[in-house]
């Protein structure tokens, strides 16, 4: 199956792209996306604690199952609006 992976803010800069299509085996979960990205950015596990992920615009866990056509995103710590 294919999912779309989107990158924002510091993640976008880290991977140097906005989004990409990713081919995954059937039954893949979010952790499989992270594992794939680890090849490119070996330090990514250090950020699991502070980074969130979403599937189809809802926060999701590393064990969330993926389906063909899903939109996945890496969500660095959010800072909506103001810092006061």
């Amino acid at each position, binding site marked *: 199956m294919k999912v779309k992976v*989107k990158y*924002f*803010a*510091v993640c*976008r800069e880290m991977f140097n792209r906005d989004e990409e299509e990713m081919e995954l085996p059937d039954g893949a979960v979010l952790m499989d996306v992270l594992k794939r990205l680890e090849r490119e950015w070996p330090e990514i596990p250090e950020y699991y*604690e*502070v980074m*969130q992920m*979403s599937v189809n*615009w*809802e*926060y999701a866990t590393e064990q969330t199952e993926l389906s063909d056509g899903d939109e996945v*995103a890496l*969500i*660095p*710590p*959010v*800072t*909506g*609006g*103001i*810092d*006061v």
Partner: protein
Amino acid sequence: MFKITNQPIAPEDVIHAVKAENAGAIVPFLGIVRDNTGGRKVSYLEYEAYPQMAEMKMGEIAREIFEKWGLDRVAMIHRIGRLKIGEISVAVAIAAPHRKDGFEACKYAMDRLKQIVPIWKREVWEDGGETWVKPDPVYFNQKTAT
């Protein structure tokens, strides 16, 4: 009304959206770009959002407010792109029959907006440095609550 926009925000945008003939109180909130962060001079800010998810999460906050206070007139607009000092980054407004509920609900909306709405801020300083802004330390305890 829940909106991510790259256009300047006017307070009237959210106030007008929540006006109702039976609402005696409107509590807005405006986030303004400050000229400094911890004393370091800010040149401008750059906001980025995951627009579709951000608008969904704003709607989710409005549903939480309805469950907690029974208030159903909530508006939120967040601007993205490059903002100058003094410009409005975020505007919220809540109409309420009682002012106490209005204040509580508006404060709650801002607390939640900073926790769960996917928006990021990059500060560019006058001395040429820049950074993606990290959330409060409290974030790390609340991550699993989202």
